[in-house]
């Protein structure tokens, strides 16, 4: 599993990249009450704001971690946003994307580096 400085995790599953937010991020956000997901089939560029997460406190964005195409989104989050707090690394994945060049993930943090990053 890889991590970004935006507190996303990425996992390769059957040649697509599954993306969610870290437990640290979900704790910082507080209780999530609303999630807006991108359209499946849309093409995104790295750092595009493609999801919105609203907690009881504030709204924040999820940026596309890589260039690619969104192939599937987790609609369960729209009906049950609290999944993001309950199981951020598992059930609460946000989207799956097809990425041309998976080697671009090599530079991302591994778990140990991310733990250092969040202190």
């Amino acid at each position, binding site marked *: 599993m890889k991590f970004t400085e935006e507190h996303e995790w990425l996992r390769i599953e059957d040649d697509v990249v599954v993306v969610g937010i870290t437990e640290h991020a979900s704790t910082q956000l*507080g*209780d999530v*009450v609303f999630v807006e997901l991108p359209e499946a089939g849309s093409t995104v560029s790295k750092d595009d704001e493609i999801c919105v997460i609203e907690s*009881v*406190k504030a709204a924040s964005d999820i940026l596309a971690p890589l260039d690619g195409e969104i192939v599937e989104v987790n609609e369960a989050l*729209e009906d049950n946003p609290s999944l993001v707090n309950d199981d951020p690394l598992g059930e609460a994945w946000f989207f799956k994307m097809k990425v041309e060049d998976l080697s671009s993930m090599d530079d991302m943090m591994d778990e140990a580096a991310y733990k250092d990053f969040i202190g």
Partner: protein
Amino acid sequence: MADLKRTGLYDLHVELGAKMVPFAGYEMPVQYPLGVMKEHLHCRAQAGLFDVSHMGQVILRAKSGDLNDAVLALEALVPVALVELKENHQRYAFFTNDQGGILDDLMVAKREDHLCLVVNAACKDEDIAHLRANLSDTCDIDVIEDRALLALQGPAAEKVMARFVPLTQGMRFMEVSTFESPFGELWISRSGYTGEDGFEISVPNKTVVDFAHSLMSEEEVEFIGLGARDSLRLEAGLCLYGHDIDTTTSPIEADLLWAIQKARRPGGARQGGFPGEDRIFGDLAEGIARKRIGLRPEGRAPMREGTVLYASVDADTPIGTVTSGGFGPTVEGPVAMGYVSIAHANTGNTIYGEVRGKRLPATVTAMPFRPSTYKR
């Protein structure tokens, strides 16, 4: 956090793992480890304990010794009838300015020989200066510095409070009373700002830590932070000063006419005689251009403070703005309040809030969003 004040419970909040934030010049707990959502739901289901010691407590006594002189003096600053207020009761009030706007909202309790005011933390210095500037000739103004203020709110508040002060069980909404207790003299009112039954308790600083420990040791009680305090009062349709009401909003625009009793309205026994009378009576006689309303956004996206409101998906001109908005854990959806032009203020109207560039529908809704459970 330099220069920020702390309440007597600061160390306890930190010990409990609260996240402390600057609020109105104080370091206050915004949430505890339970989190905003669970704290909110706990308060509605059991009992929530709030540290509201940052609020100002002020005692007014007439120099003449006659309580009625203090009552009449304060009536000159608020459009609220205090003469008719019964002893050992309190009433919601607001200081108005000469333009008919609101300087602060407050509670006024009438006790045996004095009035006791509770004012907002963010306004208390200005409020005290305002009282001194206007009432010093007739009243002694005593700012209470040696007392803390707690609120115990929720359906279990009555039985929890009765374990400490049995006689509180007989109190009704907006009644106030003084009780001797092992924690010293307690000034208790049956009131709060959550839409729940409950109490606000003024307790000496020197015993507040013991008292808070005792209350939180009761199984029904959890400490609740400012985050859930905000969502609770929003669901209850209650105004937050500086957001939903301020120096530019008249009480009529703010839909607070209910708090201006007949005696102070045109034709009343003591009509007018408060700052901004012309504007406020003008608003009453001629109608208002905008009004505070409740909003239930469709879907789940919250419409937060500052969200611009429109009459339709493609209208060019805004009709108003959201002044408080978020997610209501008890109503299980987003709730908001704001001001809209009067033509769009009817309950049931659909209007649109622009959220991240999209116009999302919302229904103008009567408040409270969730029925209040005051013990009347």
